[in-house]
């Protein structure tokens, strides 16, 4: 590197040029990758729906997506309703939290419409610390499976340290609490969409022909 003093103009010019070039490179890569990233996130979502609503068959059934506005919140929540003919197999709520250690994470929560219980959770995207907060993913720990089969309305969604029922991840209390926050949001959206669809437990549990009547 040259030891001689550089003129101010040269400094400004070099830095501007490098930044401009960097911005241009970044912008073009963003444009190129935008479509594939959207596709892979779409694919991830449909895989997640299939994983948490196991009776759903993508070849014979269909998914209807809707957005739900929760009172007092700015961002709407997307809800995916899985159908087989006219029968609702389950509801997958694409919920999120802004209270995570890494800012925000998105999870998909499946609900069984008969019993109002959670059928499973899938992490869509997160920025939690590897080895600690990333245990919100069921591939990494048993933490998320503790909610399976539970009715969230009857559950005290607080970590045990704060008098709740949730077994927090060791050394990742913030992530655990954020997960509960996302579940709570998911539960609210689930109840709203259930009300909107006018589903009650008896209907969903009844014979197929009765269901057809309900659909008419």
């Amino acid at each position, binding site marked *: 590197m040259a030891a001689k003093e550089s003129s101010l103009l040269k400094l400004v010019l*070099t*830095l501007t040029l490098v930044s401009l070039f*960097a911005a241009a490179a970044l912008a073009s*890569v*963003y444009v190129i*990758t935008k479509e594939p990233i959207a596709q*892979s996130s779409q694919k991830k979502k449909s895989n997640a729906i299939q994983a948490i609503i196991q009776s759903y068959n993508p070849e014979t059934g269909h998914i209807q997506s809707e957005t739900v506005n929760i009172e007092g919140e700015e961002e709407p929540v997307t809800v995916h309703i899985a159908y087989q003919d006219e029968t609702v197999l389950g509801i997958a709520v694409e919920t999120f939290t802004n209270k995570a250690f890494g800012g925000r994470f998105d999870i998909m929560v499946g609900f069984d419409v008969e019993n109002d219980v959670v059928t499973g959770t899938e992490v869509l995207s997160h*920025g939690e610390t*590897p080895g600690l907060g990333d245990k919100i993913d069921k591939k990494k720990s048993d933490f998320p499976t503790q909610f399976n089969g539970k009715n969230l309305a009857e559950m005290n969604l607080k970590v045990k340290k704060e008098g709740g029922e949730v077994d927090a991840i060791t050394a990742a209390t913030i992530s655990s609490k954020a997960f509960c926050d996302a579940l709570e949001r998911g539960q609210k959206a689930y109840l709203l969409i259930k009300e909107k669809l006018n589903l009650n437990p008896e209907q969903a549990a009844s014979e197929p022909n009765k269901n057809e009547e309900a659909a008419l």
Partner: protein
Amino acid sequence: MSKLSIVTKGFIKENPVLVLVLGTCPTLAVTTSVENGIGMGLATTFVLVLSNMFISLLRKITPNEVRIPIFIVVIATFVSIVDLLIQGFVPALAESLGLFIPLIVVNCIVLGRAEAFASKNGVFDSMLDGLGMGIGFTIALVIIGTVREILGSGAILGYEIPFMKGNEILIFVLAPGAFFVFGYVMALVRFLQKK
């Protein structure tokens, strides 16, 4: 300096974590398991080789006074591009490495090597230096990760060790355990080097 020694000096003699004490923040954070260590190590190696290459290419036109901002712009741009490309075209890799990539921007090994080596040496030598430093970083992460995973989780690479399972020492998964293991490994390396 021979080409080979440019690469191998990063392994032990000038190991970025254990001897130069750079990049300790990601080291402490991700070494809870061997798998995380390997993931972080490989992602960093990849970025190091290419960021060293770019910095070295730009070294003739980089004015001394603004070199640090230029290094940072180059590194941050490069990491973001890698992040986008992996997300778009290799989603399977993004799933396992995606978490580590944003952490690389703040890894001072990358900036440290840009300043200490790539800004003064040729393109090929700089890439070799990046490779060696990346491998050295990976070695350090794997050593620390192995100790912490065995003692803290009773497993190695996710496979349970019969005797250790049930006798885990939780503190080794937590931050204080990271400091303990880091300190002991560093001391051991210093001891071996003095001999």
